[in-house]
């Protein structure tokens, strides 16, 4: 595997100089192009040299587009005839069909987009279902934060602090084994108390709870005095 990837590395090393001209210190965030605004200047791309290149560019554009992309739009960007682009797309479609790819290029709502082939939907479905997620929704994260800093704590107490009911979050966190029941509180109704688990420590890379950042740690960073 390493052999294969190495050649990628060198391939990518080519272009720094040409890129640097436009660049400030800017890091591409993965989603940052989604809502991008026009910069206006020097966005005129190089002229397309060959049919092979044209196909490659069409492929790239369809891939990054968040909506099905029609030949007309591509033709506008590349400043080429729509018929030329259409020929390129047709050739690409054929290519993807011919190679028995897991992806297909298909026409939807008047535009072209990549999609997985229906033959493999069960595997894709199984994957999406299986996909381990260390991620949390904001609601669960909030609940977890309250529990982490205020443990042991009961559900009504969490409600007090968050101002929102958290039953489904509690369930999610229990399912993910990030929190555990810590006995019952000696109060009316003897409500269950919750605290963070060992799994919580592992997932957040903490040796113990004393390693949680404190308000002071944060304020020092925020105020610039460390």
């Amino acid at each position, binding site marked *: 595997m390493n052999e294969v990837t190495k050649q990628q590395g060198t391939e*990518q*090393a080519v*272009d*720094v*100089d040409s*890129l*640097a001209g436009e*660049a*400030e*210190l*800017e*890091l*591409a965030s*993965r*989603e940052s*192009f*989604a809502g991008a605004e026009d910069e206006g200047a020097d966005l005129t791309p190089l002229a397309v040299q060959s049919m092979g290149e044209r196909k490659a560019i069409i492929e*790239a554009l369809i*891939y*990054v*587009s*968040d909506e099905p992309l029609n030949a007309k739009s591509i033709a506008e960007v590349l400043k080429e005839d729509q018929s030329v682009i259409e020929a390129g797309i047709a050739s690409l479609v054929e290519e993807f069909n011919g190679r028995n790819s897991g992806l297909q290029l298909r026409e939807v709502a008047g535009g072209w987009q*990549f999609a997985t082939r229906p033959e493999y939907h069960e595997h894709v479905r199984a994957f*999406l279902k299986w996909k381990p*997620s*260390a*991620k*949390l*929704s*904001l609601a669960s*994260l*909030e609940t*977890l*934060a*309250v529990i*982490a*800093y205020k443990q042991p704590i009961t559900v009504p107490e969490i409600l*007090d*602090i*968050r*101002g929102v009911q958290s039953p489904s979050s509690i369930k999610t966190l229990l399912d993910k084994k990030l929190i555990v029941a810590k006995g019952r509180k000696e109060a009316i109704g003897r409500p269950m108390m919750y605290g963070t688990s060992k799994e919580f420590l592992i997932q*957040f*890379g*903490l040796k113990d709870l004393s*390693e*949680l*950042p*404190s*308000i002071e*740690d*944060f304020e020092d960073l925020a*105020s*610039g*005095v460390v």
Partner: protein
Amino acid sequence: MDETPESLEPAVAGDVNLPTTLNVAGSTPELVADIHSDDLKIVMGEFDGPLDLLLHLIRQEQVNIYDIPVARITDQYLSYLQQMQNLDMAVAGDFLVMAATLIELKTKMLLPRDPFAAAEDEVDPRHELVDQLLEYQKYKAAAQMLWSRATVERAVFKRAELETDKNNPEVVVGVFDLLKVFQDILARHKDEVLLEIEREEISMAEMIERLRNMVMSSGELNLRVFFERARSRRELVVAFLSVLELVRTTEIRLFQRETFGEILARVAS
């Protein structure tokens, strides 16, 4: 804050011609108009710290990093700080610490060498600083490498968001996110302004004023008493520099009543 806040940076960064190859030396200071006043200010944000400034001076003077002419570089460095005085002194905190180090180094270099010590036993007083500069240089170069990488990475695009992504409105979190979220909740819940304890920073100008007043009011000031009022290392450095400053402008002069005695300051007549 001892560093230019991020929000102020674009004004500076926009004008920097970032090197495309690994270029280790520092950047050029720049005069910019402050929109809030008529003054022209030197943007120190371009120097990522005193080491960066030192490297810049060393390169500018075209001297050997292993054999820094300390007196010359120190003078340059101090004149730089002079120009910075109109700036918020808090920005210059770490620069002042370096100033003190340089002055100390300059003094050591002036001391006569021990004639009995073997040449190889003598440690060059600059040794530590040179090591620090060389170490820093490596990371400065590494930062440029990261910048190049990020630039290349900007040429590579990933697919747009799929509905499958959007339907997982989830966040990857670290412990600081946990803390931040917790703080947000507390703020939301209590809607209570946290009492902020301001950490007072005394500026060079204020320190000079303090020194002037203390000398004037008593006619004569024991410097030890003056230095003991400093509540932090930084304040001590500022105090030290303010003494140097008033001596330089011949506003005060220093003297001792006996050898190794207390150092006293008096208004120069």
